[in-house]
């Protein structure tokens, strides 16, 4: 298996386990590349990539841009706050205008679920979903899987707890699909109000007690409370949320085994995770960021290789 089964990366749901393993093994090679003194390879020197960010982002945008530049692609950046979107231009018009400038690939983040799929049906370029609303964030799930594999040696049979705002999290959904395809057991943990209704159809364990979830898992992936997507109150106060679902050093040290702590960022220190846990030796948060570049290079490289 040396080629992806898909032309776009719209979500983890569309990928096969072989696709995911191919991306992870290619990413290993790229991780070696980005740790050289000359971190650049010429693979995509004839490719132009547009990064369209209709929603705020630091890590993902920088990570994609760095990945593209390290593959020698030409990069153009676009963010909705400083563009004609504000003047009422539609998504398809915006993208078609950008494609008229001869762009080969589009990396897009958008606040609406399904935006990437919609785009792939209407335009002729390879699309990479960099997060669409509360739907999917495939490259985050891939880099999380890569980081777990790197830390624990394998993913099959490992127990991963995803803890926090599951309802509004695209990271949670992509992670669930990805980890299950690779043979891991997944548990979600959070307040009842932050569990999506469809959760029972995903074949994951559901837990509302943080300590029980932590005792069960090998890896805890802590999610941020996405206040920007919450139009109503889902819990009485952030302080109460922190008391019930925040990960602190005291709970971490009282567990019977040393678990791995992950966080997709941005961290709200003192809310879902305390500083001493985020900066502890059990945390692989910064490794996740480093691996993000390698994984995105692998995705871009493999998609560019698809005729």
């Amino acid at each position: 298996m040396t080629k992806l089964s898909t032309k776009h990366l719209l979500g983890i749901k569309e990928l096969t386990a072989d696709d995911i393993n191919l991306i992870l093994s290619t990413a290993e090679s790229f991780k070696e590349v980005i740790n050289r003194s000359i971190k650049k390879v010429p693979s995509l020197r004839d490719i132009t990539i547009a990064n369209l960010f209709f929603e705020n982002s630091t890590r993902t945008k920088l990570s994609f841009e760095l990945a593209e530049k390290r593959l020698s692609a030409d990069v153009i950046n676009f963010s909705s706050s400083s563009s004609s979107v504000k003047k009422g231009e539609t998504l398809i018009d915006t993208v078609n205008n950008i494609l008229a400038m001869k762009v080969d690939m589009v990396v897009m983040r958008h606040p609406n679920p399904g935006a990437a799929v919609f785009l792939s049906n209407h335009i002729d370029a390879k699309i990479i979903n960099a997060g669409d609303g509360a739907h999917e964030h495939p490259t985050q799930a891939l880099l999380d899987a890569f980081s777990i594999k790197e830390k624990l040696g394998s993913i099959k049979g490992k127990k991963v707890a995803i803890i926090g705002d599951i309802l509004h999290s695209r990271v949670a959904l992509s992670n669930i699909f990805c980890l299950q395809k690779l043979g891991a057991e997944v548990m979600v943990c959070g307040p009842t109000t932050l569990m999506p209704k469809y959760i029972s159809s995903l074949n994951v364990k559901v837990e509302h007690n943080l300590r029980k979830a932590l005792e069960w898992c090998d890896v805890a992936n802590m999610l941020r409370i996405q206040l920007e997507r919450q139009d109503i109150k889902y819990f009485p106060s952030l302080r109460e949320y922190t008391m019930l679902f925040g990960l602190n050093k005291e709970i971490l040290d009282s567990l019977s085994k040393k678990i791995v702590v992950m966080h997709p960022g941005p961290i709200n220190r003192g809310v879902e995770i305390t500083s001493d846990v985020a900066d502890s030796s059990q945390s692989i948060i910064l490794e996740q960021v480093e691996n993000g570049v390698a994984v995105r290079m692998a995705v871009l490289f493999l998609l560019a290789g698809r005729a």
Partner: protein
Amino acid sequence: MKPKIILDSKQFEITVTRLCYQLIEVHNNFSDTVIIGLQPRGVYLAKRIHKKLSEILNKKDIKCGSLDITFYRDDFRTKELIPNATEIDFIIENKKVVLVDDVLYTGRTIRAGLDAMLAFGRPYDVELLVLIDRRLSRNVPIQAKYIGKIIDSIASENVKVEWKESDGADKVTLLSND
């Protein structure tokens, strides 16, 4: 057509030994020279030569690495390629580099290898060593300095190099696809 044996295991051994002595003629005790095998199949030859040289010279510190060229190829969009590991844990700046591959065919792999190598420094000079040179098939102006055996073959034929380590026996055969 029946596969034609180009090198059997005895000839294979003699050829590799001869290549080692040719290298020693030029590079003496390898204090300024490093060996780099191209992934995937050139690495077997590089390791074999490294082992033999270490025995002949009774020297344990001859440097040998492996280089993957997948990301430097000019044809990665038309071929299915899987990257392998690059392991070069030494500096090649100002060193003499012996680039090693099993078969020299179009020369494109070597072209990519020269590019890939530059990420590890600027070598003093670079030489090419190959086990088999298919001399009539070059697409780019690249020649080897040390050659195990020169063969005349056409594009529909395939040269298969087998290694004790991975295939059970050392052998080179010419296969015809007609």
